[in-house]
C-alpha cells in the first residue's frame, strides 16, 4: 500500500517535472517569430537587446527575434499598433500618452530610462545663470518630447514660452558650440558627448528637469493590446531574455559595445562606450535602483500624466492601469531584474 502510494507520488512528481520541463524549454517547440522595433538606429543605447540576441537568450526562450532599427521618420507606436512589429522601444511616457490619447491599442510593459534623459546645456561663462535667464535668449529643442520637458521646467518657474526664442533644433550642436545659440538640448548619452568633445566639460552648465521637480521617464517598451492579452507568455519570455542581455551588457560594457558595433561597424567606439555608461545610469536611477531595470514607476508615470493633462498635451485623462501594465515585468524575479 505504502509502496504503491509512494510509486504514485513519484509518478506524479515525474509528470509534473516533465510538464514543467516542457514549459521551461519551449525552445524544443517551434520558435515563435517576433520583432523588436527600436526607437533609433543601432547604438549602445540598445546594447542589452543586441547582447541578448547575440548570446541566444531569445532563442532559448523560444523566440525567433528580429531587431528592427528605428529612424527619424518611423513611429514605433504605429508599427506596433498595426502589428508590423511585435515589440517596440518607443519614445517615452510622453509618446505612450499621445498614442493612447489617439486611441492606438498599445500597452507599455516596461520603462527603460527612469529619469529624464534630456538636459539643457549652456556656457558657464555665458549670460544664462538661472532658468529665469532663459528669458529673451535663443533656446533650441526637439519638438518630439524634449519641448515638453522644457515647457514643464519653464512653467514651474513661472516663465511663459513666448518670453524666450524657442527654435526647432537641427541635428547638429554646432550652432551652440559656435555661440549662435544660448541654450541647446542634449541627451546625456549622445549630444552631450559631442558637445564635450568640442569644448571643455567644465565650461558647460546644465539644467536638469529633476531639479525643478519633474521627471519624464523615456524609452518605453510597448506591445499591442492584443499581444498582451493573447500572448502573455511571449511578453514575459521576451522580458526575461532582454533583462538577461542588459545584465550582461552592464557586466561587460566593452563586450557589449563590440556586439553593437558588429551591427553598426562605422560607429565611434569611444562615443559608444560613453553612451553605455550614461544609459546604465539612466536605466538604474530612481525606482529602478530598488526594483530593477524596466521598472514601471507608477508615481513617475502619474506625475507625468497629470502634467501633460494640465498643459493640454493630452486631451483627456487616461486609464493609466490600462496603458501601463507592470504585471509582465513583475513576473521576472527581482534578482534577474537587478543589474
Amino acid at each position, binding site marked *: 500500500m505504502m509502496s504503491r502510494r509512494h510509486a504514485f507520488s513519484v509518478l506524479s512528481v515525474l509528470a509534473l517535472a516533465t510538464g514543467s520541463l516542457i514549459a521551461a524549454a519551449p525552445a524544443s517547440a517551434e520558435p515563435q517569430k517576433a520583432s523588436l522595433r527600436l526607437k533609433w538606429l543601432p547604438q549602445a543605447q540598445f546594447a542589452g537587446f543586441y547582447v541578448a540576441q547575440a548570446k541566444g537568450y531569445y532563442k532559448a526562450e523560444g523566440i525567433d527575434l528580429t531587431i*528592427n532599427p528605428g529612424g527619424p521618420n518611423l513611429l514605433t507606436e504605429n508599427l506596433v499598433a498595426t502589428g508590423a512589429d511585435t515589440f517596440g522601444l518607443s519614445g517615452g511616457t510622453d509618446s505612450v500618452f499621445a498614442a493612447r490619447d489617439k486611441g492606438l491599442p498599445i500597452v507599455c510593459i516596461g520603462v527603460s530610462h527612469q529619469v529624464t534623459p534630456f538636459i539643457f546645456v549652456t556656457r558657464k561663462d555665458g549670460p544664462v545663470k538661472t532658468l529665469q535667464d532663459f528669458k529673451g535668449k535663443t533656446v533650441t529643442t526637439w519638438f518630439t518630447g524634449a519641448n515638453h520637458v522644457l515647457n514643464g521646467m519653464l512653467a514651474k518657474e513661472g516663465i511663459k514660452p513666448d518670453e524666450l526664442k524657442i527654435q526647432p533644433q537641427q541635428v547638429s550642436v*554646432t550652432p551652440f558650440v559656435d555661440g549662435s545659440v544660448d541654450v541647446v538640448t542634449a541627451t546625456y548619452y549622445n549630444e552631450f558627448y559631442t558637445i564635450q568633445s568640442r569644448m571643455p566639460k567644465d565650461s558647460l552648465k546644465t539644467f536638469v528637469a529633476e531639479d525643478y521637480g519633474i521627471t519624464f521617464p523615456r524609452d518605453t517598451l510597448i506591445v499591442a493590446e492584443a499581444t498582451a492579452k493573447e500572448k502573455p507568455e511571449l511578453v514575459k519570455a521576451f522580458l526575461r531574455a532582454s533583462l538577461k542581455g542588459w545584465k550582461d551588457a552592464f557586466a561587460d560594457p566593452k563586450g557589449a559595445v563590440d556586439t553593437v558595433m558588429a551591427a553598426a*561597424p562605422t560607429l565611434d567606439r569611444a562615443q559608444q562606450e560613453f553612451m553605455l555608461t550614461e544609459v546604465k545610469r539612466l536605466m538604474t536611477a530612481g525606482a529602478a535602483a530598488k526594483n530593477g531595470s524596466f521598472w514601471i514607476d507608477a508615481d513617475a508615470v502619474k506625475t507625468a500624466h497629470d502634467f501633460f493633462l494640465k498643459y493640454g498635451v493630452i486631451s483627456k485623462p487616461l486609464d493609466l492601469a490600462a496603458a501601463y501594465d507592470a504585471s509582465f515585468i513583475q513576473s521576472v524575479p527581482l534578482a534577474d531584474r537587478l543589474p
Partner: protein
Amino acid sequence: MNDHAATSLGQGQMATRPIVMPASLRKLIRLLLGLAIAAVIWEGAVRLFGIRPYYLPRLSTILMAIAATPRAYVDGFLRTLAETLIGFAAGGAFGVLIGIAFFRMRALREMVFPIFVVSQTIPVIAFGALVVLWFGNTLLAKAIIAFYLTFFPVTVNTLLGLETVDSKQVALMRSFGASNRQLLLRLQLPTALPQIFVALRLAASLSLVGAIVGEWFGDTTGLGVLLLQAMFTENVVAIWAALLAAALLGTGFYAVVAAVERRLVFWNAEQ
C-alpha cells in the same frame, strides 16, 4: 648599361611608331588628374587654414576611416547599388512602356496620367513610411521607393519624345505599308530615344536618392543607413565617408547610363 639600352629602345619605338593614346584613356587620365588636384587642394586647405574638423575633416582622415571598416562601406555600397539598379530598371522599363501605352491610347492616358501626377505630389518621406509598413525592412521596399521616384520622368519624356515624330514621316511609312509595330520600332521609338535618355540620366540620380532615402526607414545596411547613423551621432568623418561612397556610386551609374546613350543614340552623340 641596361638603362641606356632601355632608353634607346624607347626612343627607337617613339621614332618609328608614335604612341597614339586612345581618347578614352586620355579622358580617364585627365579625370584622375583632376581628382588628384582636388584632393590635394582639400587636404592642403584644411591643414593650411586649420579648419575645425567638424566643419571639414581632412580627406586623409576620411579615407582612413573607410580603410578602418572597409566591409561596412563595401556592404553598404553593394546593397544600395542593388536597390538602385532594381528601382531604376523597373522604373525605366515601366516608364517607357506606359509612355508608349499613353501615346497609343488616349483614353488610358486621360484616366491614369492624373493619378501619376497625384502620386508624385506625395512627399517621399511620407510614402517611405507607408512602404516600410507594408513591405518591412526588405530590399524590395527600398527598390519600390527608387522606382517611385524614377518612373514618372521617364513616362513623361517617352510620351514627349513620341509626340515629336514628324507626321509626314509617319504618312510616308504608312504609304509603304508599315505596320503599327514597324512604325513604333523603326520610326517612333528611335525619334523618342534622345528624350527618353534625358529622363534616364535624371532617373539614374533619382533612383539612387530613392534608395538612400528608403534606407532611412529602419533599414540595417546600405549607404543611407551609414549616412543617417553618422549624421545623428554627428560623426562628421563618417558623414563624409558615406557621402564619398554615395558620390562614387552616383557618378559611376550616371556614367554607365551616358555610355549606353552614346551607343544607342549615336546620331545624337555630337550634342
